[in-house]
């Protein structure tokens, strides 16, 4: 007693996260989409569109790929209302949001991890393979960002070398799928662990400016390794 064993820590965590967490994650994405549009000098329609794109893009992409019927985003009216509300915030307070950069990074990191788990979970509940679930989880997490960049007319930032986002999302989805498939953890517990992993990765990456590098041709080095080995043999 008194010592917090991992099991005891996990016991306090709910079985599944409540529904409002998804709305909150949508709101976070939408606010940063709106602030981005405002900063780029787009008009009111641009702010609305990019808020909707970044907030709801991931879920829309997931539901389109899974083909499980009309997306939750359209069935539950609150999603669009949250996105539009976030757009209004971004329209008037873009300056303030830019100044609260640290807070935005933290909230975005949480939302990133959350979308990974939600995407992966949706794929798993369609009895898709773990590989597909990791893919859908990653796509759900970065889909909003990619859609925003495409609509804003720039090459998607996620795909280019930089402080990593896509990599963190991938690890998050992988963690979630592994926890759900390989351990007896409840969904909510696995979800929270995966979110924490993504959060830690993303924040460390930002803090220590870890970044992904451009892909480079490794064939020379691989070939060199083998030929050297052959020379050393006799």
């Amino acid at each position: 007693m008194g010592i917090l064993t991992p099991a005891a820590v996990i016991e306090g965590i709910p079985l599944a996260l409540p529904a409002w967490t998804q709305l909150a994650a949508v709101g976070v994405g939408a606010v940063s989409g709106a602030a981005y549009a405002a900063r780029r000098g787009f008009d009111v329609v641009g702010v609305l569109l990019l808020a909707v794109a970044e907030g709801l893009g991931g879920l829309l992409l997931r539901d389109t790929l899974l083909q499980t019927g009309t997306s939750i985003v359209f069935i539950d009216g609150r999603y669009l209302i949250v996105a539009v509300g976030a757009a209004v915030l971004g329209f008037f307070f873009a300056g303030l949001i830019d100044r609260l950069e640290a807070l935005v990074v933290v909230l975005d990191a949480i939302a990133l991890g959350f979308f990974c788990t939600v995407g992966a979970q949706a794929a798993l509940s369609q009895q898709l393979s773990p590989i597909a679930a990791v893919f859908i989880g990653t796509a759900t997490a970065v889909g909003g960002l990619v859609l925003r960049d495409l609509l804003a007319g720039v090459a998607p930032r996620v795909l280019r070398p930089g402080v990593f986002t896509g990599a963190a999302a991938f690890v998050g989805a992988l963690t979630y799928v592994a926890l759900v498939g390989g351990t007896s953890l409840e969904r909510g517990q696995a979800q929270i662990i995966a979110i924490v992993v993504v959060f830690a990765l993303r924040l460390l990456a930002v803090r220590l400016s870890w970044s992904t590098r451009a892909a480079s041709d490794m064939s020379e080095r691989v070939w060199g390794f083998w030929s050297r080995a052959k020379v050393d043999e006799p």
Partner: protein
Amino acid sequence: MSSPVESVLTLPYAVEMTAVTFGALSGALHATRKGLDPIGVFTIAVLCAVGGGAIRDVLLQQGTPLFLVSPAYLASAALASVVGVVFARAVGAALPVMNVVDTLLIGVWVVLGAERALLVDLTYSAAAFLGVVTATGGGLVRDLLCHEVPVVIMPGQWYAAAAIAAAVVFVVLVQSGVSVEIAQYVTILAAAGLRSGSLRFGWRTPTAYDLWGDLEARVSAGLESVRQAADERARRHD
């Protein structure tokens, strides 16, 4: 909840085909100006015509998109594209007429999109959103394929803004019990009115307003004037 929209075809079929045809013509005109080759012009024109509806149907996930099911859509889009490619100059000369028709068609697209959404019992906010997507999707696809920043998100004349306002008008009217018949014509007129108003009076869509920075500037200016007044008083006192 029973849907207030009983059939997709509350607007005459001819109106829908006109919308598709003119979408293709204006797409062809745009692509010709960009200097694309004939295949490029044809592609852009067809996608401009059916793009909005295609995005809407993919998002709705109620079966195969309408433009693939009913051959008339692709047929009229293709025909109009060919006309646009072959008679680009004539179509360019008819631009004033096209602009008038285009103005009327904004509301038509909005109604077509919103009705499809209401037909499958979606919420009113989703119906408004899909109406706007249908109206602006074609242009969005066109701009993305031409690798340009989409016109709809740049500050300028009201197009998407008119579509958004018209979509709100439509769902508010339908929700408050006005018959869809009447609501759709009011919507078309509202969109056309806003669009031509913006062209006539040069209304521009607003860009983001930094409310926080503005308030901060006002507060600091206010504090500054208070401080100056205090300094002034102190000096006079001396």
